[in-house]
């Protein structure tokens, strides 16, 4: 059977993403690793918005620097406000959470991070 090539999805049809740069105040975040931060964020999002929203939101930790208490999280554009509002309930675990920046590309955030 001949191999069928799958077409690339056009940028206009792709799901919009947002990259969020988060800074944590609590020393507790320094002992976390990327996996446990993901578990905390997704469990908290599920608590606030439900499991169906969690499956569509596509939360991904792009980078996490425990020494600097910084994390970059990727989230679907449609769920950005739901994700940010859910952080209200997470703050007790990680102290004060500062949303430093929200950008449409990872590159623009990494410039800020430096």
């Amino acid at each position: 059977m001949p191999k069928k090539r799958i077409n690339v999805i056009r940028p206009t049809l792709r799901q919009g993403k947002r990259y969020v740069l988060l800074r944590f105040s609590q020393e507790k975040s320094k002992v976390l690793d990327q996996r446990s931060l993901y578990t905390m964020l997704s469990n908290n999002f599920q608590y606030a918005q439900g499991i169906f929203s969690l499956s569509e939101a596509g939360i991904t930790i792009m980078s996490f620097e425990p020494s600097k208490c910084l994390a970059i999280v990727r989230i679907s554009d449609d769920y950005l406000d739901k994700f940010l509002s859910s952080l209200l309930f997470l703050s007790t675990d990680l102290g004060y959470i500062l949303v430093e920046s929200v950008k449409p590309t990872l590159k623009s955030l990494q410039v800020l991070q430096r």
Partner: protein
Amino acid sequence: MKKYFDIVFDGFLKEQQLDKISSINCWYVVKSIKKKEDLISSNLPSIKPELKKLYFLEDLSFATQIKNGLIVARGRTADEVSRILASKQIDILANPISSDKPIFDEECARVASEGKKIIAFDMNEFRRQPYKAIKQAKFIITLLKKHRVDMIFCSFADGLSKLVDLQIRKSFAKELGLEESIIERIFDEGILCQKKE
């Protein structure tokens, strides 16, 4: 340039981290008035972000003794809320959410509209009792929108862990059903400046 604000308790100043929170350029510091001696003015420390004083009344009888400055009061019962809204001296009603039966109804919204009061939601109340607070807040916001009453969403934090970031507050307000145009207006410091004038 927009001036975003937040309200914190004076105990928060001890942590001295206000300059690190770049999204807020105006801080209202709450001074609790419990007894007569508290009325003797104590100056706020001169640190880089702008600090403004706000009087928080535990006893409503002190309202007449404060000549200038914004006055906030919190009502724990429906009667107290009615008294606060009827008072000419008090500018802001803090936290209209109750842990028991609702204390804010349509009549309260109407009186608040006539007296041009501001209703301040305490963000930490949503952490303490999320289900009840969200349910009551949605109901109250509908009334406030109907009667065109101004509302604000503030941290009322006494420590850094209780502080809620501006972006989180804005997104939370959006989730509670507020439109973008209203959100831009209520998070701007102008809303409190107008009140002072």
